[in-house]
């Protein structure tokens, strides 16, 4: 067997009980990050004026992504519909109390900082909680931040496929233990936590160019000003 060339190798038990699907998604996230890093380096070396000062990681050349169709409260939205504007994609869920609203608020601010040019930027929120987030709920949630925002959901399979193609990881979090017990007002925790689960998800924000190709990734917590600066570059790209 060709196995023998690997020589004796121990696999730690922890590596064996991993779920294969998240591992695949992480791998694709790693790929995107690697691409982003490579893109950033290329631009840095070229010393291209504005691009050198980007806060996010530029994808160079822009990366085509598989076509997809998801659902908004007003009907289907497909990747083809996102062409013609710069599109900012953020994956989250409407029951997320902190980082999702924090991110969408910053995206609204970024768009406002661009003034009239902000109309050329479309912000799209994609739910990673399709079981609870109906298309109507996702759309209403996104519009609560800015009436121009698009909110999408879809079948669990459709969401998983789109997330995967953008390197976005998500998984339902293990139930939170409220160990002091003093907070639950009659909450019945028995039998799982179907109503109150949380979802872990990539905090990455992605920007697509006017041709719907992946062009820039904000991996860290970029400020509204930083994202506005990067969007200005993408709008002039």
């Amino acid at each position, binding site marked *: 067997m060709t196995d023998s060339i690997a020589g004796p190798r121990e696999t730690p038990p922890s590596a064996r009980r991993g779920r294969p699907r998240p591992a695949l998604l*992480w791998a694709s*996230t*790693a790929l995107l*990050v690697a691409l982003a890093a490579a893109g950033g380096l290329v631009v840095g070396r070229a010393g291209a004026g504005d691009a050198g000062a980007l806060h996010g990681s530029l994808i160079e050349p822009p990366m085509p992504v598989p076509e997809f169709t998801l659902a908004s409260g007003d009907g289907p939205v497909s990747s083809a519909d996102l062409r013609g504007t710069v599109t900012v994609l953020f994956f989250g869920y*409407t*029951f*997320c*109390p*902190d*980082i999702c*609203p*924090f991110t*969408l*608020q910053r995206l609204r601010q970024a768009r406002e900082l661009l003034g009239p040019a902000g109309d050329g930027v479309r912000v799209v929120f994609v739910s990673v909680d399709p079981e609870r987030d109906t298309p109507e*709920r996702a759309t*209403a*949630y996104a519009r*609560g*931040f800015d009436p121009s925002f698009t909110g999408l959901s879809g079948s669990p399979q459709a969401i998983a496929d789109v997330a995967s193609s953008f390197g976005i*990881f998500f998984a339902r*979090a293990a139930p*939170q*233990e*409220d*160990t*002091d017990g*003093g*907070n*639950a*007002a*009659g*909450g019945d925790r028995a039998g799982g936590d179907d*109503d*109150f689960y*949380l979802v*872990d*998800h*990539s*905090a*990455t924000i992605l920007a697509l160019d006017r041709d719907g190709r992946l062009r820039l990734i904000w*991996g*860290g*917590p970029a400020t509204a000003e930083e994202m506005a600066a990067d969007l200005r570059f993408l709008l002039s790209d």
Partner: protein
Amino acid sequence: MRPRRRTPAVLPAILLAAAAAACGGAGETPGEPELQVTEAWARAAAVAPDAPSNGAVYFTAANHGGQADRLVAARYAGADRTMIHETFVDERGVAGMRHLDAVEVPAGAEVRFEPGGRHLMLMGLAASLAPGDTIEVTLEFERSGELRVRVPVRPL
């Protein structure tokens, strides 16, 4: 008989005296609470007026006393559960929230609960939190006891 009395009765008294001395440190204004919660706010939490989301409450806890204190629980009557949470982003860029059993507020220090970090999560809201509303949240500190805080709701 005498050996049975020993120190047990005396030791707590000494500890209490020590604690009292620590509390009454120099420069402390009489009547000022040692633990103060300021800048409290909640983010509006609604998908639609009749469709609540989960809520988040932020604040700054300042400990003007001479001893560390710990936030050990929080309550809001309008939520099924109120939890002390911290948003984290791991090395893969994946964000999640972890439950904190307690948050220490060291003596003379302040601890901020702010977006993207520590917050109180109001889980299972009975009603939406609308901008302009003010809610009352109870914070339970290990030493300072319960603090009732009025929390204005800010728009999204």
